[in-house]
């Protein structure tokens, strides 16, 4: 285990779900910094459609937990303008599938202001949004779009796979002076894990975590696939020693941790729920071959959604969604 993971484990922890961890992160940051406020649709009394903001409204009231009209472009733009003028908005974009509705504000304002103005604008805005299939929410509420954001210059993208990283990344995002998107996979909100209780626990954006050490093959997995890959690794432990890395940040990407692992194992699986073509998988593969080409003993394998939308019918949904079984099969193909 890396030094960093060890030190995380040594700190005092409590068991939380991913949902509770994110809410706790927001609660602590709201308490710590008066300039922080939450803004989004039905995040107040209603508590958020996926119940992430929950009871924060009871403690912080309508001034700090702001329910907006159903105006993704309007409130994304307002959050951008607010961030440039002295406050620290935390936006909830109900489903990541609605990113397109607000994309102009994201790509032409939020992402570009600091640069276009020669560094003379701060952009401390956080955008939390939910991704992923698995609950029968059908094509317009199940997508995984983080590759778009990670691809777009001027935006940071993080995607927690555990309760601890959900808390640490959310807090780091809120404290950052850059626009940070936090991609929450909706299928792991109930996943439990040990979360440091220290109110200053954050996970630096751009640091991967080695979640399990192994010798034979490296699995770089994100979001829901972190837990499923760990389970797969455990199940295969008698035959194959699997190292599992959660990059946690998609941009910037901690390529060093991944490359170090591939140099040791010589084999790489990249598992991410986004569509397979032109995306997150491709980026990791490209960078690994740049830096560890001669350490590779087998072709790199990708596990993801096979360029379809997420269908409604549960058996069809399971057909296209990547899983721990797909990770196992990929490992078996190269070991």
């Amino acid at each position, binding site marked *: 285990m890396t030094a960093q993971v060890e030190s995380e484990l040594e700190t005092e922890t409590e068991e939380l779900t991913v949902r509770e961890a994110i809410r706790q992160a927001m609660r602590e940051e709201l308490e710590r910094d008066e300039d922080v406020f939450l803004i989004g649709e039905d995040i107040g009394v209603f508590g958020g459609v996926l119940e992430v903001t929950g009871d924060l409204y009871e403690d912080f009231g309508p001034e700090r937990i702001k329910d907006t009209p159903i105006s993704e472009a*309007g409130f994304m733009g307002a959050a951008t303008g607010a961030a440039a003028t002295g406050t620290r908005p935390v936006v909830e974009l109900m489903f990541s599938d609605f990113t397109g509705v607000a994309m102009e504000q994201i790509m032409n304002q939020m992402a570009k202001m*600091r640069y276009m103005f020669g*560094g003379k604008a701060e952009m401390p805005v956080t955008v939390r949004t939910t991704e992923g299939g698995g609950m029968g929410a059908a094509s317009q509420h199940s997508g995984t779009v983080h590759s778009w954001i990670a691809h777009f210059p001027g935006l940071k993208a993080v995607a927690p796979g555990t309760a601890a990283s959900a808390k640490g990344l959310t807090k780091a995002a809120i404290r950052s002076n850059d626009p940070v998107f936090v991609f929450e996979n909706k299928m792991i909100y109930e996943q439990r894990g040990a979360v440091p209780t220290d109110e200053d626990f954050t996970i630096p954006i751009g640091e991967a975590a080695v979640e399990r050490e192994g010798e034979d093959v490296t699995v770089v997995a994100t979001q829901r696939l972190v837990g499923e890959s760990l389970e797969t690794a455990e199940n295969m432990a008698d035959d194959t020693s699997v190292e599992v890395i959660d990059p946690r940040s998609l941009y910037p990407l901690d390529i060093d941790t991944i490359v170090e692992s591939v140099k040791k194992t010589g084999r790489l699986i990249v598992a991410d729920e986004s569509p397979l073509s032109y995306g997150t998988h491709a980026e990791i593969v490209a960078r690994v071959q740049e830096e560890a080409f001669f350490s590779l003993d087998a072709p790199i394998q990708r596990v993801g959604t096979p360029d379809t939308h997420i269908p409604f019918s549960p058996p069809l949904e399971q057909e296209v969604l990547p899983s721990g079984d797909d990770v196992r099969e990929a490992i078996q193909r190269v070991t």
Partner: protein
Amino acid sequence: MADFDLESQDGRLEALRRMVTIRAFDEEAGDRFADGEIPGFVHLYIGEEAVGVGTCAALKPDDYIASTHRGHGHCIAKGLDPKYMMAELYGKADGYCNGKGGSMHIADVDAGMLGANGIVGAGPPMATGAALSIDYQDRDQIAVGFLGDGAVAQGQVHEAINIAATWDLPAVFVIENNHYGEGTPVENQHNLDNLSDTAQAYDIPGLTIDGMDITAVAEAVSEARDRARAGDGPTIVEAETYRYRGHYEGDEEPYRDDAEIERWQERDPIESFRDRLIDRGELTVEEFDELQADIEADIDAAVEYAQDAPAPDAHEAYEDMFAEMPPEIERFASAARTDGGRPGGDR
């Protein structure tokens, strides 16, 4: 209250000075663009000076404005220095944005100027956001969002005004109705005669005023400002105005004739205000000519400054993407810092 206003003689002279400065700046910018010295797109504000200056006459220095693609006039009205503005148009290191914004993104956030904007309709959400910060932190400021008549058709404009109205934010939306969006006349873009009638949809005040008359603009915006500052929410002010030049420099203007332009020029905002000040005995013709000559000399000096200013260093292209440079970009930046160019090889 404002750093200049139309209540005092000094303020009126300052307003006149700013209007003349805008015109001189933009005429020069047009010429330098024609000479090929200024790259990209330039959208000139000539003819519309009373709107920007009249609006800013109602503002305090720390109030915010969010501008449009036609932003030079807003900058000067807000007090930005033509020297660094011209350097920005020239893409020089000394420009307001280190040369990385240019005409369409010129900004000075510290001066409350939240940027010209290359996206039609993007100013109002920015103003709503600034008003949200002001409201959230209980600050004694307001935010003005400028937009064109064409921008009124944008969805994000509606969303931004609706949020500001619903939350009683201290914002003012100033529609600069110059009667065209590029080459399309306003009546072919909207079903309303008065664009300020959109205010009814938000149950906020909306008024249409003569945008060629700086006094009318300043009065309307002052009232809107007082309402905003009192916590009563935004106002829509539609200023009827006209651009004398093409949509951008190089526009051949097949959509209108000279007679139409001349009709508007008869009510020129600078000449009419100048004449009023002369009638009131606040200014003589000689003083005006002197003022104009001084300003033209300043603008010539600004051009010379911009021409001589250094270009940005190559590594500047890699700066300011984030608060701190990520490793993905650092590799290019460090190569540019050492040998002034891109690194060889792959990434």
